[in-house]
């Protein structure tokens, strides 16, 4: 069974600091990659996704992620965080072209201090 690892459980930052959240997966074939975010009191929602093509993908709110196939990684970045980026971030993977079952990482709680 595939697994998804997120390296940080809790990250605390000051506003304007840069953010990078690590994500590695253990599936050797074609994968679809996602970052989901859950803001306090809100639904889990899609931040960005990678299916194919340019390995650097841009999402909402200034976030981007880079797919590095050789490292089985899909790290999330934001150059300058805001207080409103305080949330829980989940990396998720589905394998192949016809498998819709998401496997989630454990999640990273990001706290941005004003």
């Amino acid at each position, binding site marked *: *069974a595939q697994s998804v690892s997120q390296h940080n459980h809790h990250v605390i930052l000051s506003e304007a600091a840069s953010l990078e959240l690590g994500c590695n997966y253990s599936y050797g074939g074609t994968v*679809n990659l*996602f970052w*989901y975010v859950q803001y306090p009191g809100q*639904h*889990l*929602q*899609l931040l960005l*996704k990678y*299916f194919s093509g340019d390995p650097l993908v841009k999402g909402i709110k200034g976030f981007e992620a880079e797919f590095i196939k050789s490292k089985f990684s899909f790290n999330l970045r934001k150059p300058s965080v805001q207080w409103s980026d305080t949330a829980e971030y*989940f990396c*998720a*993977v*589905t394998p192949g*072209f016809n*498998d*819709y*079952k*998401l*496997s*989630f*990482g*454990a*999640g990273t709680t990001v706290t941005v201090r004003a």
Partner: protein
Amino acid sequence: SAVISQKPSRDICQRGTSLTIQCQVDSQVTMMFWYRQQPGQSLTLIATANQGSEATYESGFVIDKFPISRPNLTFSTLTVSNMSPEDSSIYLCSVESAGGFGEQYFGPGTRLTVT
């Protein structure tokens, strides 16, 4: 995007009882999913519910414990049966977006506490 609602939003139940969670979507969807998020842990897929067929359960989850109904294309229920404190979790439903490949819209979740 799809708008998903769940009822109840939270509940406190006694061990040995059952709770049925409802999931309503504002559009017709083929696949609906049920997840569990135990305290301090990630989301784990319980089962996939397609309209008109039996739900497909993931390893470690069985129909007797988590019966699912999918009577139409906008509604599903998940029952947590014969509950124990270990069932205390957040239960979420989701639907696949038009983008496919795992892109899903999630409901707000039902926070269940079993005493």
